């Protein structure tokens, strides 16, 4: 049976012909791309680094963290490279001052949103968010910390979720829905009170849909989802399964 149409499936861009090839410029370098490849994909193929957080190879694009924004010459608004398709002769700047400045501010906003205390975090040293801060040379946060109160759900026998570390990238929601097919995770509320939940906001341990596969834990960029029994800096994420599953599914 055919799956119903979903907006977030990259191949469904009705406006592009995947057979077409084009050339454009990233940071003054000539690159070539297939018409359905995103700017981010092409940049990475050419060894040009663009920071990302919600993007994860093997999952659908979310386009929400805005860290992968790039400047396109002739356009006033900055474009998220993970969902923007290149056009012939487009000139993309990934490291202009404007872009770097905005990225840094966005990262600081993420840090100010919840309680990211690296020194006592299970993923200290193995955290995507921390790595981004180091990479961008973020030394302090210029905005006031919001310091929300968030609980920890440790009802699951093997995993726990600490909302204080969550950046709402929704990788867990997507991997659970798209790869595992369980759709245990979802989001409730909106705006600043958004929160990832299991089932209908029941404790994770009592979830009837969770298969306990742990994929969500492995794709989580921060210490929000972790395995139990790990102490500070001991939680290393293993994501090898994603490219492997992708490859096996494509072969079929």
């Amino acid at each position, binding site marked *: 049976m055919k799956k*119903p*149409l979903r*907006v*977030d499936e990259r191949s*469904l*861009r*009705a*406006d592009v012909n995947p057979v077409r090839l084009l050339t454009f410029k990233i940071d003054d370098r000539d690159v070539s791309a297939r018409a359905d490849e995103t700017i981010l994909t092409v940049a990475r193929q050419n060894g040009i680094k663009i920071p990302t957080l919600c993007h994860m190879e093997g999952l659908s694009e*979310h*386009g*929400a*963290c*805005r*860290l992968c*924004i790039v400047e396109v010459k002739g356009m*006033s*608004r*900055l474009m*998220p490279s993970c*969902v*923007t*398709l290149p056009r012939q002769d487009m000139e993309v700047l990934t490291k202009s001052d404007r872009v770097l400045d*905005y990225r840094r*501010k*966005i990262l600081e*906003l*993420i840090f*100010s*949103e919840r309680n990211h205390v690296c020194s006592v975090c299970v993923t200290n040293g193995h955290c995507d968010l921390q790595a981004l801060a180091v990479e961008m040379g973020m030394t302090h946060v*210029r*905005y*006031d910390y*919001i310091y929300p109160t968030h609980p920890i759900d440790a009802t699951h026998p093997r995993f726990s979720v600490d909302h204080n570390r969550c*950046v*709402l990238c929704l990788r867990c929601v997507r991997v659970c829905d798209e790869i595992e097919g369980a759709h245990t995770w*979802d*989001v409730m*509320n*909106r*705006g*600043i*009170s*958004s929160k990832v939940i299991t089932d209908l906001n029941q404790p994770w341990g009592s979830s009837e849909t969770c298969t306990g596969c742990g994929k969500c834990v492995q794709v989580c960029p921060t210490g929000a989802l972790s395995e139990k029994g790990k102490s500070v800096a001991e939680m290393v994420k293993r994501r090898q399964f994603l490219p492997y599953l992708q490859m096996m599914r494509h072969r079929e």
Partner: protein
Amino acid sequence: MTLTIEDLQNIAKIERDRQEGTTYQINVCVAAGCLSCQSGLVKEAFDTEISRRGLENWCLVKGVGCLGLCAAGPLIQVQPQGTYYQGVTVNDVSEILDSLGGSPVARLECSQHQAFFQCQQKIVLENCGKIDPERIEDYIAEDGYLGLFTALRQMTPGEVIEQVTKSGLRGRGGAGFPTGLKWTAVSKAVNNTKFIVCNADEGDPGAFMDRSVLESDPHRVIEGMAIAGYAVGASHGFIYVRAEYPLAVKRVHTAIAQAERLGVLGNNIFNTRFEFNIEVRLGAGAFVCGEETALIASIEGRHGRPRPRPPFPAEFGLWGFPTLINNVETFANIAPIIRRGGEWFAGIGTEKSKGTKVFALAGRVNNTGLIEVPMGTRLRDIVFEIGGGIPGDKRFKAVQTGGPSGGCIPEEHLDMPVDYESLAAVGSIMGSGGMIIMDETSCMVDVAQFFMEFCMSESCGKCVPCRVGTTQIYHLLHKISGGQGKPSDIETLGELCDLLKNTSLCGLGQTAPNPVISTLKYFKDEYKAHIRDKNCPAGACRMQAPEEAL
């Protein structure tokens, strides 16, 4: 059985005869504004009193849509003289009936010659306050569904789009995208299934244009949608209306049922192969669902969150099919354009903004209510002529247009014409048409804080700049209005606003900082007074004593 033009003319004739059969006609406003001040009881009292006196053949009582001057409700109009009575209560009914044929009741009269009624030009609202929104016959008597007939029987879809393009009509939802261009795009999309969506998820604080149109003249929107369906090749439409408008929802349902019964919706409309059906979908209270991609997600039954564009709904909309999304007011303009031609419409308004615009006047102005003026009308005329100025000898301070996505316009720009470009040039937007007038007792920091709180709680939470940025801006404004601001906060505010504008995912985040940006631009002194002198010049903010703050 399909409807023919003769049937349509017949219905119109019978209805006109019915109305002209009586000497007097009393139109009682039964739109939400007047209903809330008991106009329903007034109408009932008229009915009872007339049947008690046995005057049914002499005087007809009709519930009509919005008469415009909501401030003076409950409002009634006596035809054929056109006398308005304001603030009518049940006790005034006999006196008004007694006065028919003689001189009007001076105590209640509301002059029809005042600027409020004289300076308007009505296209969208031409039937508002004139027809009974719950009777399709009444709409047909005012040339209703003639536009649809003309389009279906005398024009090709291409010609319909040509007329719309020629009219210069631009989207009335706020952004002002040329309607003809959007229709062309959807009509060119290659797909056998297409959808029409009417966006009636009006959520701006202080705005009630779409509600009034749906409550007063729902058939006009249905007709516009059907014409759009014919033009772009769609046979199914959705009206996405917010659940907070129960009366509008009820009247739209009634109107759809009547249109289906008569055959102006359904299969083989006017004996052609064209079929069109409309379904109503209720919003669940999310402001962001007025954004087109979030609206689509909501109709599909998913979480109402926007997605990045492109692809635009014109190529990838509802369930992946090409979808035309227009605002209520845009659709309401279509039937007159088809009936009278695009050139007629293009003759009204300014060079780049054609036609008229409906505004909802609210706030510190004497004549709050619903108005329709040609594009290019001076803002000063709207506030001081039509709006009747500021009550209580207070000084005008600013007018806020475009709701939470718009900006505050100070007195120095009052002489500019109202059109899409001029409003954008002073840092505001046309928006859907909400116009909130503020006097000297309004504090601009407080106003900015109000709108930012709105955006913060209505942000969907998907992208970081909007989710965290609106919260940070709100916290800063809250600090400043409480007298706890630092001089550097102004700079931080500016930085954050710029960040949101340039990096947010959808229109909500991109425009959310506008109220702050515009007040920072025109009323910086007020911000400074709050920070430096710990004083609110307008006296609206409560300053915290130092020990109260943490």
